[in-house]
């Protein structure tokens, strides 16, 4: 994206994450930032969006005036059906997740470790509302990617050598999209894959709590 440098960094990272969705995939977008990925998919993009409260084939989000009181996604947004949508109960919804029919899930994170561990549901003593469906999504989607700011509000890194918070799932994160970079989890640790426009590899390393492996040659930007 040539004008990437001039966009809001968060919008840019969400737009980049949207390009991770290949045609024909079945995808679950986690509550929060990942849900915004939907705004970057064209109306006829061939994707089956799943929401764990019981729907496959999510269509556009609706304003309150047009909302169907019985039709929400797991985050509470009012959504719409598309031709071929189906509704099902919670057992079927997670059967789909656990049995490997979910090609991709995008989740938020408090912490991601260089071995793919994810913590995104509990901060002991401060925040423990329960994990909802996050544990099954993080453990069983065929591909788990994370969408998060590179550091927390205080500037502390969220990409770490080891997670310090209670885990959501162990070793399943494959890729991380942040406002600074795209980072892969590899057997040797974090691998820098792409840079946000205007950001240097050095800046990403400084904001990361583990060693970043750098690619040989040019680093693509987004």
């Amino acid at each position, binding site marked *: 994206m040539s004008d990437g440098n001039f966009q809001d960094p968060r919008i840019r990272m969400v737009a980049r994450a949207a390009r991770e969705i290949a045609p024909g995939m079945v995808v679950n977008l986690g509550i929060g930032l990942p849900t915004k990925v939907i705004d970057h998919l064209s109306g006829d993009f061939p994707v089956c969006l799943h*929401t764990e409260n019981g729907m496959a084939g999510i269509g556009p989000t609706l304003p309150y005036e047009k909302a169907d009181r019985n039709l929400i996604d797991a985050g509470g947004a009012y959504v719409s059906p598309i031709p071929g949508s189906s509704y099902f109960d919670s057992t079927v919804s*997670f059967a789909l997740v656990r049995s490997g029919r979910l090609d991709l899930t995008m989740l938020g994170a408090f912490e991601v470790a260089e071995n793919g561990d994810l913590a995104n549901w509990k901060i002991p003593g401060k925040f423990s509302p329960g994990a909802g469906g996050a544990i099954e999504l993080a453990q069983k989607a065929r591909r788990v990617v994370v969408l998060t700011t590179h550091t927390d509000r205080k500037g502390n890194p969220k990409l770490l050598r080891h997670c310090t918070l209670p885990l959501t799932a162990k070793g399943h994160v494959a890729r991380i999209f942040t406002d600074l970079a795209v980072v892969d989890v590899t057997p040797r640790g974090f691998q820098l894959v792409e840079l946000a426009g205007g950001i240097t590899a050095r800046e990403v390393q400084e904001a990361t709590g583990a060693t970043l492996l750098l690619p040989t040659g040019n680093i693509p930007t987004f």
Partner: protein
Amino acid sequence: MSLPDKTIAMEEAIAAIPDGATVMVGGFGVPGTPFTLIRELVRQGKRNLTLIKNDANEAGMGIDHLIMAGQVRKLIVTHLGLNGNAIAAMNEGRIEVEFCAQGILAERIRAGGAGLQAILTDIGLDTELAAGKQVVEMDGKRLLVEPAIRADVALIHADCADPSGNLTYLATARNFNPPMAMAAARVLVEAERLVPLGDISPDAVETPGVFVDHVCPLIQISEEYGVVRR
């Protein structure tokens, strides 16, 4: 061969629930929550309840009324992040809370309804949700034993019911209702519409009436069922 009429006044259906009962409550957010049955449970002041539900609704809605009235001893849920009252009640020790992974809660309830004793799963291994749970080895793999759950009562919200208890649901209001409607000793249904026996095609039935004990037609749909403007 003919089927029974299970319609009943809501007051009577709820009156049969004893203090201390374990109660499953359908719903995920607003859709599928049996708000009117919950209101009657509040009105009759049943106490010391254990509630099993996906979530704790939001402040001022659904089971929050039961929590705020001090009628709840324990909650078994998957998350309660949208209800600050419930979080406060948990943090202050006024209610006991047990968390369960969402799909595993659904499966444990389904197992109860299916007359199975437990499921074996790898969900939650290596997380603190596995703490204290029985582990079984199968084919060299460690698996968690997740016991079936049954309740004394299930409170179900359906779109449509016939007098024999056959039910259909709408859109994402289905969620936990069908498995819960199989997993309790007494299954109480509030239905937005009651239709004559035979009006629901046998192929279209989502919960067979065999599992249902009582059907309470809703006289009006309160604002709690409406679209939430946040």
